């Protein structure tokens, strides 16, 4: 009991409790609409973790939302609400594609060049939002939403230009293969590689049937780095001070305006990086004409909130999010359950993480009940004596 009370007081308990409630609500909805919840959840787990290929795809799909999640969490901790992850992500993909198509250096130069140009694109866009807030007082949420749409159409414009358009398609030209960040991209397609992989089925499953790439490693690195930057450096201290109380921060000599721009620059850069890594890491290695927002930025919000806005916490949160959505596709295919049940589930999880006081409140209640019972016991003992 004591262990349980102690556990409930830790921040991670709120997240776990919320996840549990998410499953419970989804089970209730499934049961009332005529599906077997246990069978559905079984299929969900199978669809996310059942085969090496599934697990790999979950990791691949977790990469961009881990980064956009870190971006949101980072900005949130410094008092800014970056709703522009969507646009910064798209800017990252466009910039990476432009550079990846135009330049063709050997891989050790090409890959950093392409990836960093995407990050830079996102960073500059983020900095613009920060600049408009710092110097003109325009709410970052408005400018973020506007830039999301501007970047979507800018991406479509890049696709349509003569220099980058791939004839008879709705995509741009693919980036040069030297930009690819998959694991062993050439070897796995060579005769020698295929011969070897035929003998090792699980490895073949992972390497040939998916775009396994180094993006997730980079993303984890960025998540940890962002956490260190915020909590262990002077810059991070200043950024958080501005978020907590801008007036007090200004009084201690921190440049508030500069801080806002810096924060949005970093936050936007992380989203841009997410876009660039998707271009270098997964097919079709280029940008496509977009009809609507793809949701990477928006899903980043959910990831960050499930993680309680801890940058490192985004790692498990992004895997959970991606596992649920990827497994949800199998649920729809195999059982005919509309995959929207997953969106409902994630919505419920985020909703309950909005109530951070929930788990500690339960802890206090348990504690009080225990004390009450103890006092009854002692009273009883006293009576017997």
């Amino acid at each position, binding site marked *: 009991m004591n262990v349980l009370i102690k556990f409930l007081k830790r921040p991670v308990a709120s997240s776990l409790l919320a996840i549990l409630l998410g499953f419970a609500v989804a089970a209730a909805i499934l049961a009332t609409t005529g599906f077997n919840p246990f069978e559905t959840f079984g299929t969900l787990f199978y669809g996310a973790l059942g085969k090496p290929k599934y697990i790999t795809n979950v990791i691949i799909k977790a990469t961009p939302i881990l980064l956009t999640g870190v971006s949101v969490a980072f900005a949130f901790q410094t008092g800014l609400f970056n709703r522009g992850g969507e646009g910064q992500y798209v800017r990252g993909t466009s910039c990476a594609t432009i550079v990846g198509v135009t330049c063709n250096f050997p891989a050790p130069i090409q890959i950093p060049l392409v990836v960093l140009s995407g990050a830079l694109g996102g960073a500059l866009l983020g900095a613009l939002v920060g600049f408009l807030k710092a110097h003109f007082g325009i709410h970052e949420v408005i400018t973020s939403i506007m830039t999301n749409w501007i970047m979507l159409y800018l991406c479509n414009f890049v696709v349509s230009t003569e220099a980058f358009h791939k004839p008879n398609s709705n995509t741009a030209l693919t980036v040069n293969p030297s930009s690819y960040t998959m694991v062993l991209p050439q070897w796995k397609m060579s005769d020698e590689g295929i011969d070897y992989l035929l003998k090792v089925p699980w490895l073949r499953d992972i390497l040939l049937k998916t775009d396994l790439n180094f993006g997730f490693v980079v993303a984890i690195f960025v998540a940890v780095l962002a956490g260190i930057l915020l909590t262990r450096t002077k810059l991070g201290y200043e950024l958080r001070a501005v978020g907590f109380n801008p007036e007090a921060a200004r009084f201690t000599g921190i440049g508030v305006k500069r801080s806002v721009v810096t924060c949005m620059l970093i936050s936007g850069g992380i989203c841009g990086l997410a876009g660039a890594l998707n271009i270098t890491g997964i097919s079709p290695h280029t940008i496509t004409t977009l009809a609507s927002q793809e949701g990477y930025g928006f899903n980043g919000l959910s990831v960050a909130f499930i993680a309680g806005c801890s940058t490192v916490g985004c790692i498990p949160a992004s895997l959970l999010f991606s596992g649920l959505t990827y497994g949800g596709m199998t649920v729809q295919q195999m059982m005919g359950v509309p995959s929207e049940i997953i969106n409902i589930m994630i919505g419920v999880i985020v909703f309950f*993480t909005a109530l951070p006081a929930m788990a500690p409140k339960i802890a206090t209640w348990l504690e009080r009940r225990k004390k009450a019972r103890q006092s009854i016991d002692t009273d009883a003992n006293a009576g017997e004596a």
Partner: protein
Amino acid sequence: MDKVVLLLGITLMYSTPLVFGALGGVISERSGVTNIGIEGMMVIGAITAATTSYFTGNPWLAFLAAGAAGAVVALLHAVASVSFAADQTVSGVAINLLAPGIALFSCRRFFDGGATTPIVTKLPKVFGDGWMADTPWANLNVNVSTLIAFLACVIMWFVLYKTKWGLRVRAVGEHPAAADTLGIDVYKTRYVCVLVSGVLAGFGGASVTIGIISQFTPTAIAGQGFIALAAVIFGKWTPFGTYGACLLFGATQALTIILGGGQSIIPSSILAMLPYVMTIIVLVLFVGRSVAPKADGVPYIKGSR
């Protein structure tokens, strides 16, 4: 001349859902509750309106049902943000995740797995169907929901600035503790405001599915709720300012459609950016610093300092 009338007509048509959504944002935020969930409430309104209109054939009933459905979703937000002092941004984002999920899930349940509803009966036009049907003026014969949106704006202005209750709402949004000492029930006021905001957002969703297009599709509500939110800030949290902002958004959208119609030297994707670029420019040049209600987004906990 034709073009001007057409521009006006399209402007009014496109701004209507935004006006409803934005007014919902105004009332909620004036009482101190940030409502990012407008988009989600609009989606729920949109599916409810289309489904009700399909099964009853009565668009007016559908319109009211959409408002009620919006209020039910808003109740979730109110419970979290008023009673549980939750992070209002997070709760709003959760609603935006939940609502499209619920909308599509129920759409698939009601209509044999389809992501869209069949064509349903729309709300009538202001002057009926026959009004100058063959003249250019016909474009001004807008859907009745446009008129309702304008009336809602006038009513909200009157309530907020000319009634005792409106004064209380504004007091709660600026300084809940002070309002509390004067005997105003902060929690009740906020609950009512968030619920009203849900009703309006629900109407906004309905004005798309039974006002503009005549069915529910997964992209019927695609960002209008967020643009409405931008209009709230743009309009500095006042009903008429917000209405103007919505008209501006509608007008830029209409301009894009008209300019894109003929032979145009500007690529269509660049043209499509226009509304959003113009918004930022207008904000920088004319609007400047916008100050939210002081207690906006801050949960009120009785007795805390």
